[in-house]
């Protein structure tokens, strides 16, 4: 509860709907059940249902006190009015991040405020790694950003807005983070596609929790590190710049941190996922306390899959320049006639510069990069042939 900070409008607090799990939303357990059933259709029907049964006043009290019941149940669908009210509060804890990007790496992202002092969580992606981050809060103020701590195992970065002493920010209350069941409706808030600028509210997308499963996904050679389950969402939540956004339940309680744009390792389809805040909570608290996280050395040193020289020749029909120095450039030494490589148009002497969007720095690099694809994938290579950059499409055999 140390993160509790009141910043939301009175109106939303009184309604007890908006920002239910966000800081400042005080809810007396006994009152909450009523507050969560406030909409005319449900209200009237539940009332009439109850009045049909002669109930003791004790029972009525008990019903009211059973706040947790409705929390356990996926909510009844909101009326439009309820929805628009609920959607206002979480907007205030989202920051728009801006940094360095290139090509398909976006120069913008999203963060979620987790402390009144201005701590922000986001995905530990290129935006954080390259530095020079700035953040724009929901009221349009711009801040420099320090990286306080990171956790590779959780793909998480904790940032701190360079605010003036005494500045306070609305934030999520991690102690109110909840877990949901598949089928529960959710909302995703993010700076996707950089649609909103300045003080404009970020984009909200609606969806349903599709599953809670461990995620096996890759982005080039990078593998999603978290072993514990994540939320899969049935809506397109993980768009450009959405990483670090907030997933809430239908009443605004914080649920997850929206992850990267990433493909599933097996199906190669884009995955829309969020990491449960209940999983991240202890990590964030450790980082907030200033402690360093132990880097799981096993993961870091895990051997990287690569296509062997032999396989490269037998499967693809490619022989690369012998890997004699540490960073031998990825030059093609020979191409087997009628092989996949030959059909793609690759030739002896071609230098492989890019595999999809990844820059290839060496033969080893190329062999590792190629290993991330699966049979049937179409990979776009960029080659340098006689000082010209040419695109080549390679079908993985």
């Amino acid at each position, binding site marked *: 509860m140390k993160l509790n900070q009141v910043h939301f409008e009175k109106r939303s607090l009184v309604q007890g709907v908006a920002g239910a799990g966000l800081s400042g939303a005080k809810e007396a357990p006994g009152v909450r059940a009523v507050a969560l059933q406030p909409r005319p259709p449900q209200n009237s029907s539940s009332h009439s249902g109850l009045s049909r049964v002669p109930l003791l006043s004790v029972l009525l009290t008990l019903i009211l006190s059973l706040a947790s019941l409705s929390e356990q*149940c996926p909510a009844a669908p909101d009326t439009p009015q309820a929805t628009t009210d609920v959607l206002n509060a979480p907007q205030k804890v989202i920051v728009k991040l801006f940094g360095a990007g290139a090509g398909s790496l976006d120069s913008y992202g999203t963060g979620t405020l987790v402390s009144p002092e201005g701590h922000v969580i986001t995905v530990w992606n290129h935006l954080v790694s390259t530095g020079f981050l700035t953040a724009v809060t929901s009221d349009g103020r711009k801040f420099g950003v320090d990286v306080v701590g990171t956790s590779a195992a959780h793909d998480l970065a904790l940032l701190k807005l360079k605010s003036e002493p005494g500045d306070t920010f609305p934030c999520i209350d991690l102690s109110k983070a909840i877990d949901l069941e598949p089928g529960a409706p959710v909302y995703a808030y993010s700076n996707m596609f950089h649609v909103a600028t300045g003080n404009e509210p970020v984009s909200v997308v609606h969806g349903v929790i599709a599953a809670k499963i461990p995620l096996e996904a890759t982005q080039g050679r990078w593998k999603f590190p978290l072993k514990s389950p994540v939320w899969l969402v049935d809506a397109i939540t993980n768009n450009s710049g959405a990483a670090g956004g907030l997933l809430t339940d239908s009443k605004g309680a914080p649920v997850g941190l929206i992850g990267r744009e990433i493909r599933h390792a097996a199906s190669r389809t884009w995955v829309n996922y969020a990491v449960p805040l209940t999983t991240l909570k202890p990590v964030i608290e450790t980082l907030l306390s200033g402690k360093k996280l132990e880097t799981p050395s096993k993961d870091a040193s895990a051997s990287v899959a690569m296509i062997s020289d032999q396989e490269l020749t037998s499967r693809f029909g490619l022989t690369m320049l012998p890997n004699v120095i540490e960073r031998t450039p990825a030059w093609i030494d020979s191409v087997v006639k009628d092989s996949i490589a030959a059909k793609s148009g690759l030739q002896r002497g071609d230098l492989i510069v890019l595999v999809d969007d990844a820059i290839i720095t060496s033969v080893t690099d190329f062999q590792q990069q190629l290993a991330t694809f699966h049979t049937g994938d179409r990979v776009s290579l960029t080659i340098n042939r006689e000082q010209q950059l040419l695109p080549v499409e390679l079908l993985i055999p």
Partner: protein
Amino acid sequence: MKFIIPPAIRRIAPCSEAPASEHTAPEAPASTLKILLLLVCFLVASTLPASAQQSVLEREAARVEVLRKISPSIVCVMDPKGQGGGSGVLISADGFAISNYHVTDGSGSFMKCGLSDGKLYDAVIVGIDPTGDIALIQLQGRTDFSFATPGDSDQVQVGQEVMALGNPFLLASDFTPTVTYGIVSGVRRYQYPANTFLEYTDCIQIDASINPGNSGGPLFDIEGRWIGINGRASFEKRGRVNSGAAYAISVNQIQKFIGHLKCGLIVDHGIAEFTVETSATGEVKVDQVSALSEAYRRGVRPGAQVLSFAGRLLTSANDFQNVLGIFPEGTRVPMTWRDRDGLHESTIRLRPLHAFRKAPELPEERRQRPPQDPEKQDGEDVKPKDVADEVPASLKSLFVAREGFCNYHFNEIQQKRLMTALRERVATLGDPTPAWIISFVSVEPGVRLTGELTIAASAVGMNLNNRPFLQSTVDPPPEEESPLLPGLLVSMNQLRRLLSGNSAAFTELSAAGQTFHLPLKKNVDVLLTREGVRTCRWYFEEGSALPVGVDVEYAQGVDEARLLFAGWTDHSGAVFPNRIGLISGVQEQLHWLDITNVTVNKPTVVEKKTNP
């Protein structure tokens, strides 16, 4: 569907197994409590889910009913060969329908439109708004088309449920529209032109699926009110299919253009002739001002803080871009700004942004290609052949090409509507050559003016407080205007031309849509005339044969003359208003001249006779 149904089904199971650990009722004994709890659990499980399910079913039934009502207004817009295109929505019983410019751009002047009745209708292009990505077409063959009812898109809120209707991927060969459901993800979004001139201002962002072929189709709120036209989506790594971020042009913006589009125009958007930036403190400040602009003449200078523009409070430069983008060129809009001298309020006219003389071409990749199933391979595009020969003559007669217009046929219709009424009104005047001699007084506080106007075919003269002014009607120099009533002489010259009822009195005459007139605060039809360098916008109230006002531009860098006409009265051989109001630019004050006498006479001031 996926969003609504699961909660209702899932509600039953978890409720009945709700943990008892969370309750608090310390006053009750434990055993009693357990029994009561079981009872309560049973009650909650048996009543709430049923009611929730009931409400879901009711809402579903309501939605089905709404869709049944609105589906007949959805148009599948295709090129004349029936090849792919996009979507549209009917807006009136006589077949007018709105679509995207980037949909009709590929179809030419004629198109085939499919409705949910499974039938194909011929349609003709009427007007286009290339910048706003809007096109107006007219379906033929019926006068009882179903049409959509617009809502107020300014009231749309984030989180509100919406439905997009259209024909993505041309899925339905019988033209039954595809419905996708979502929520409003953002409002008042600004989307940059992005290598084209298509600029989405003040648009509605939605997470309903929008795919190729949805373009031009309508967005409805959950009650079936038309709130936008789906035309754009954020596409990136995943290809040109739905990404959960699509944008709809707001219906309130479209409504401001419909009057113009019905005149067969290539409607332009406007510029304010000054730029703004958001300051570090969150104020919207003027960056640069054109020295020839109306804003400059009103006193707008770099550094001034713009508080509101066109009736909307500004908090960012994006706000300014948004509100600027929702008006057609030529609209007069109010603005308030603050500088060292205090608070100021005035109006300015938006100047042309692109001034297209013909329909601009979109880059190939921005055009609406025949929608394809994403699973199909590329390269199946069929190039439409020249189909001019296949268009029936009756349809061909509805299209007239003319430079500066989208379809001049529709401008002629609107011109005719305005000019026929005017001609009938002035037909009884008889000989148009004699001079009109008009006496007027002004009893406005501060200034007392007495004057006499002589309006003849070849010259306009005025005696104002015993000071003479004379102006030739052929290219009159602006310095011959009275400094007390600037622009009055040239306006009287133009008025006399209009009241001749003869279109040939002007070098150009066209219907120019509708506008919200300031200071009348009324929607009026606009008739645009040009004669030499002089451009007049004549304003007609519905049902009035004679104009209620005119704005006359007569020289560059000089304020236009803005006149109001009240109480048109017949005199022997002349028709003239009882009062003429002049709006003087600097203070936007309305100054009334009372007409005391009108006589028709042989020219007195002007001696030279006109030779026709």
